[in-house]
């Protein structure tokens, strides 16, 4: 070993002491997170399976019955697909928090903290990787919907817009799981936190239009920002481009974005504040 080592050191590659540009830091870390996400398919697949399951079950159970409900008509698939996308996005988004909590537990997060990399890049890398995973999930759900015979009023553009909205919801909620991951450094707490996806997705106008809900569930759905995102997605697929409804949907996304990220940034601060 000594001989080999001696030979090598005479031709050592010098690493320039240039600072890595911020964008490259983010893409490098995003790529790294994506690699680990792909290598743990068990963490990614359930979200897709659950949402495809929802799609098939609701389509199978209600597509006939729905024709009797006002406001639903015969294209129930286009009504339920947004719900399926949202549930995939919400449950899939925990992959971001899981990715960070893994790094904290295996010590790699500390290793990254010891490099001169920007602390914000540590957060953005996994989030972008999570966004890519969410896009793939959404694509799978949409393709299955189209194979089942879903018709849309707005074509390819509408489908992309609907996927985009679900991704915004997923990335927003991902911020919440990131916050819990950073705050607790605990995998159990992080996956527990992602169960918030159940009330968030079901306390909406999940199965029937908002107008048909009554009582406490109507109140809950009215307060839940995801309801408005769902309405926007449904309107795009089933009616057309309605600026008002889409604007409300985007505001819903923004709300889902802002609060989790304030929480995530505060948690990043407390994790990287040198105690």
């Amino acid at each position, binding site marked *: 070993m000594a001989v080999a080592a001696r030979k090598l050191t005479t031709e050592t590659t010098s690493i320039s002491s240039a600072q890595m540009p911020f964008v490259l830091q983010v893409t490098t*870390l995003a790529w790294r997170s994506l690699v680990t996400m792909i290598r743990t398919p068990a963490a990614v697949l359930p979200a897709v399976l659950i949402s495809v399951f929802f799609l098939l079950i609701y389509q199978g159970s209600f597509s006939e019955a729905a024709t009797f409900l006002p406001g639903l008509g015969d294209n129930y698939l286009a009504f339920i697909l947004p719900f399926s996308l949202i549930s995939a996005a919400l449950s899939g988004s925990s992959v971001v928090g899981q990715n960070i909590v893994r790094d904290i537990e295996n010590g*790699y997060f500390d290793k990254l903290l010891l490099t001169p990399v920007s602390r914000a890049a540590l957060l953005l890398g996994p989030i972008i990787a999570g966004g890519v995973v969410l896009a793939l999930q959404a694509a799978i759900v949409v393709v299955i919907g189209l194979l089942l015979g879903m018709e849309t009023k707005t074509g390819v553009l509408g489908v992309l817009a609907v996927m985009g909205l679900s991704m915004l919801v997923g990335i927003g909620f991902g911020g919440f799981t990131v916050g819990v991951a950073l705050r607790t450094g605990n995998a159990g707490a992080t996956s527990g936190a992602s169960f918030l996806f159940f009330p968030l997705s079901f306390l909406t106008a999940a199965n029937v239009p908002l107008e048909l809900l009554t009582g406490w569930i109507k109140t809950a759905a009215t307060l839940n920002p995801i309801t408005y995102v769902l309405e926007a997605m449904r309107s795009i697929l089933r009616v057309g481009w309605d600026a008002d409804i889409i604007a409300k949907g985007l505001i819903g996304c923004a709300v889902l974005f802002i609060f989790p990220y304030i929480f995530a940034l505060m948690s990043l601060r407390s994790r990287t504040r040198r105690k």
Partner: protein
Amino acid sequence: MTNREISVENLTKYYGDVKAVDGISFKVPAGEIFGFLGPNGAGKSTAISVLTTLALPTGGKATVGGYDVVLQAQEVRRVAGVALQEIGLDPLMKSLELLVIQGQLFGANRKEARARAHELLEIVKLADVTDRPVGKYSGGMRRRLDLAMALVHEPEILFLDEPTTGLDPASRRDIWAEVRRLNTEKGMTIFLTTQYLEEADELADRIAIINGGKIAVEGQPEALKAGLGAESINLTFQDGDTAERARDILTTMVERTQVDRRTLRLYQANAANAIPNVVNRLNEVGLNPISLTLTQPTLDDVFLQVTGSNFAIETEEDSAPLAKPA
């Protein structure tokens, strides 16, 4: 520019009421291997996390390579290579991937980072297992990769927190050889913590013994051992009481005595010559030792001397004072 030195002045680090590091001061000149020696919980890892910017000090001042660890943390991160006690490797990644990313995060382009990664994999003898996820590596391999990660940017100052804890003897010797090589060939300043006296003795130009957050003694290993002066005769009895009784009888025959559990140590210049008299005296009173050994002073003795308790025992059972210095 960096001066390759570490300078610590009256550094403290409290966690609540616990004084993990309690006012330590020392200087490590450029190119020295400095051994920071102490039992579990002595404050070694805390000192490393402050010096490497992972934790902020409660008080005092520390510079690494001339950069202040509080005010110039980014510069410190650039000049320091760090291998923490807890290995920080993502088990799903492969060694080459981890090293390339590490190189890039320190400013290398992809090509440079790859070349450097391959060199390091040769050096730490992992070149033939780059396709295996790190999670499948043995403890020794992981430790070597972690060391390679710390070397990616050719740091001028290397921090190693218990680099051989939990390793088998062969892996430990590999790490020692590499540490020595980095020091002699690259002139790297190395700050090393260890709970193995043997390791500090083997590698360090100078050591400090830390105990209860304070530096108990500091100096060259040889000087510290020489400071103890005497060789010792070690007599182990069947129980501590017998050892104490033997001490009462023998105490006038030697320069100094010490009981550590069942073992009585008799310190005496030219100890070998004193053995016949000691054995005869024990025979007369009917106290028969189980074993008798003769030792040159070791760092173990230094530790015993400065902390008043046995190193190995303290490591296992925390800090119950088991020995009373004579």
